[in-house]
């Protein structure tokens, strides 16, 4: 197979030495089946062992290899080098997150938000295992199915200017996951999750830019989840206004 040469321009930030990040160019020979992550691995193995970045599965499942490729948040393991033929490929750390080193960002904020929305099935009372699983119809599954495909890659946060302006914003993936449980027929945790998603920095902070859904590599539509959560919240508030005793449950 013939090999072309790609120029990869990578953000370097070595906190012990550099006051701020800078770009470094590397020439990488590549074949048609190689992705940006392969190029980074090639650099690390052959050109510069100090380059730091995250990755694991190499197949779009673990969500750890996200970076801004050519200015767009992407999984580096799913971005083919030949798509950028003839251009210098800029690889930068995901926007809006603090940079720890080179392409590695601090994920703490997102991790806290994930825990905050309680991403598990909440039951008022667990039924004993002998009674079997909580059953669900195909239609009930369909209501939240796409939102359960999230791999926590944080590309949607990187694409969201609202999050860029206000770090407290709950943001796309955490809301998509909250909605995934809110819509799950087996879940009974609405009363716990509603105050979290509807607080000031919850869904109402979203101004419908919509870029989160554009960049998501798993076909999740976080913008949709946010708007649906807004609708649920509004109808709930209306119900409790009309029927103060238990209407807004």
């Amino acid at each position, binding site marked *: 197979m013939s090999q072309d040469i790609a120029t990869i321009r990578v953000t370097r*930030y070595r*906190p*012990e030495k550099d006051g*701020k*990040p800078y770009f470094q160019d590397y020439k990488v020979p590549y074949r048609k089946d190689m992705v940006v992550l392969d190029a980074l691995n090639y650099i690390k193995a052959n050109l510069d062992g100090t380059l730091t970045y995250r990755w694991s599965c190499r197949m779009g499942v673990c969500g750890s290899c996200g970076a801004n490729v050519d*200015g*767009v948040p992407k999984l580096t393991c799913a971005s083919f080098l030949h798509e950028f033929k003839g251009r210098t490929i800029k690889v930068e750390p995901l*926007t*809006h997150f*603090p*940079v*720890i080193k080179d392409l590695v960002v*601090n994920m703490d904020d997102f991790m806290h938000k994930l825990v905050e929305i309680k991403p598990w099935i909440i039951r008022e009372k667990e039924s004993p295992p002998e009674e079997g699983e909580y059953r669900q119809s195909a239609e009930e599954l369909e209501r939240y199915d796409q939102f359960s495909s999230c791999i926590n890659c944080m590309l949607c946060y990187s694409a969201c*200017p609202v999050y*860029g*302006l206000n770090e407290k914003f709950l943001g796309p993936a955490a809301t998509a996951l909250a909605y995934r449980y809110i819509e799950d027929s087996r879940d009974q945790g609405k009363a716990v999750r509603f105050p979290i998603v509807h607080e000031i920095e919850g869904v109402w902070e979203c*101004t*419908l*830019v*919509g*870029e989160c859904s*554009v960049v998501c590599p798993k076909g999740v539509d976080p913008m*949709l989840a946010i*708007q*649906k959560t807004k*609708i649920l919240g509004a109808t709930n508030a209306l119900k409790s206004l009309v029927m103060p005793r238990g209407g807004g449950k």
Partner: protein
Amino acid sequence: MSKEKPFPEYRRKLGPGWWLANSHFTQYMIREWTSFFVAVFSLIYIYELSLFASGARADALNLLKNPGVIAFNVLALLFTLYHAFTWFYLIGKVQPIKMGKTTSKPWQALLVNIVLLLIVSFAVIEILVLR
């Protein structure tokens, strides 16, 4: 283990030109800017009404005929329509309607809402203006 971070993290701030970074952001910003045009339009409108109310009919009509005001109104109309159409589309996306086995598409919601907008606008003109 010490909780302190050994080295400083680099924090980036969103610059004022962020909305020019990609065409979706620019489109979003155009949509947001409609509020400016709607606000100015409303102020001009309220001023015109106050002129009418105080009996300065000629001044009010002159203002209505002012080429600058007309140009602004056309611009405001374009921005408002753009805003309305993007919202109509989003309505279809957020609240698709299920009809038997098929689910409505966003462009269908856009179309239905445009037709409704035309009908309501026509009715308002017929009942309030031309009557």
